[in-house]
């Protein structure tokens, strides 16, 4: 049965200190986590790519190691991160994400690099 992809039940509080972030995953990671393409995560503000990925891995531990290296925590080289129609792949993981992401207006996209051919 597919996971409904609901918020992290362990985090509560007003929207001023927490955000509900939408994350769109590539197909293979959806299969691994048994979720639809978009999941909802509750993340403490300020919201960064690191904090979103921390929340994602905490909620779906089977994704540990598939997006970030277990040890270095660097993102895997063939993944891209798009936020509010911007490629933020090469920005710091600790940079605050756009308000459109933090407000849930737009999703954070995690995309597998195109293989070409």
């Amino acid at each position: 049965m597919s996971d409904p992809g609901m918020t992290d039940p362990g985090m509560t509080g007003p929207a001023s200190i927490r955000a509900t972030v939408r994350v769109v995953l590539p197909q293979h990671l959806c299969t691994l986590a048994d979720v639809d393409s978009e999941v909802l995560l509750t993340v403490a503000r300020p919201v960064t790519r690191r904090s979103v990925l921390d929340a994602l891995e905490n909620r779906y531990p089977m994704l540990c190691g598939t997006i970030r290296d277990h040890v270095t925590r660097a993102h895997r080289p063939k993944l891209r991160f798009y936020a509010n129609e911007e490629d933020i792949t090469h920005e710091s993981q600790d940079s605050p994400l756009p308000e459109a992401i933090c407000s849930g207006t737009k999703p954070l996209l995690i995309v597998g690099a195109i293989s070409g051919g």
Partner: protein
Amino acid sequence: MSTVRILVGTKKGAFILTADGKRKKWSVSGPHFAGWEIYHIKGSPVDPNRIYASQTSSWFGQIIQRSDDGGKTWHQPGSANEPSTNSSGMPRGESNKFVYDTSAETGKPLTTHQWYDGTQHPWEFARVWHLEPSLSDADTVYAGVEDAALFRTTDGGHTWHELAGLRGHESGPRWQPGAGGMCLHTIVLDPRNPERIFVAISAAGAFRSEDGGKTWRPINQGLRSQYIPDPTAEVGHCVHRIAIHPNRPDTLFMQKHWDVMRSDDGGDSWREISGNLPSDFGFPIAVHAHEPETIYVVPIKSDSLHYPPEGKLRVYRSRSGGNEWQALTKGLPQKNCYVNILRDAMAVDTLEPCGIYFGTTGGQVYASADAGDSWAPIARDLPAVLSVETQTLS
């Protein structure tokens, strides 16, 4: 009646082929893990329902899958029906965590090996090439990985720990990758001595442990490789595959990059048994389940061509432990065949007569239910086959 299950790993998922003991009619399930490379999938000899699979992707890394019901359902150990965080509050998901051991306790934490250009290069985990379940415990599995190292789980795949004595061997800084990467692709467990393990690494050679994997020694004496500066060097040989018969664990058969080799002293010394083969280049080698001196190889034209000589797919069988080889062609394509058969893509069942199976890079899986005398495709259009393993179920 017995059942035979063939576990097939391909470039785009795993497939499970099943037949009764007659081995005439086969059912196919899959793809399991569709779209992922399944480098290896193998069942536990202790509990045949326990199957482990190495699922990899250059995008998303390494996943270990486990089935406890003979391949009907799968899960990542540690991720199903268990708390999502450990006692420290950190996410679990460690079944795919292969981290090289650099602790002081190993004595020789090693950080580099030789790179293509001769410089030293950090060890970097890429994938699990081979999973070898223990002969005595369904929860214990050995994993051979790229960059070459040996890992072991003793908790059914929840966590993996490196047996660092291998990578810590003093020759480690001289190991270097072949064109396919520096991989530990062969793990052979001695059924008579649980402390004895053989492994093979491309392109370092063969190694043996007598103490359960703590310490290792190279076992490459007698190998001759013209493609390295010293053809008889202690390490640097591109061993492709090693096979044994369970009743004769001191006798090892090896398909090397070039040359088919044999040892009768547990790898201390090797002699060539290529004999009348049309080419002694190839990848897999297998031993008949009931005849320790009957062995099988699939000659490939050369290391630069990677297809069968003359476009004829021929398995060669020796009933004399090498040197005299017979071409087995009945049922195999004898013209315009340009597939390859990879190192882990050949296996035998334990029925009488012995069944032989192999998969090709063209997506065919061929089976012989008469020890190789005749062959038939049991799957024709799978993705490129990376590995073939068998389970004989009573």
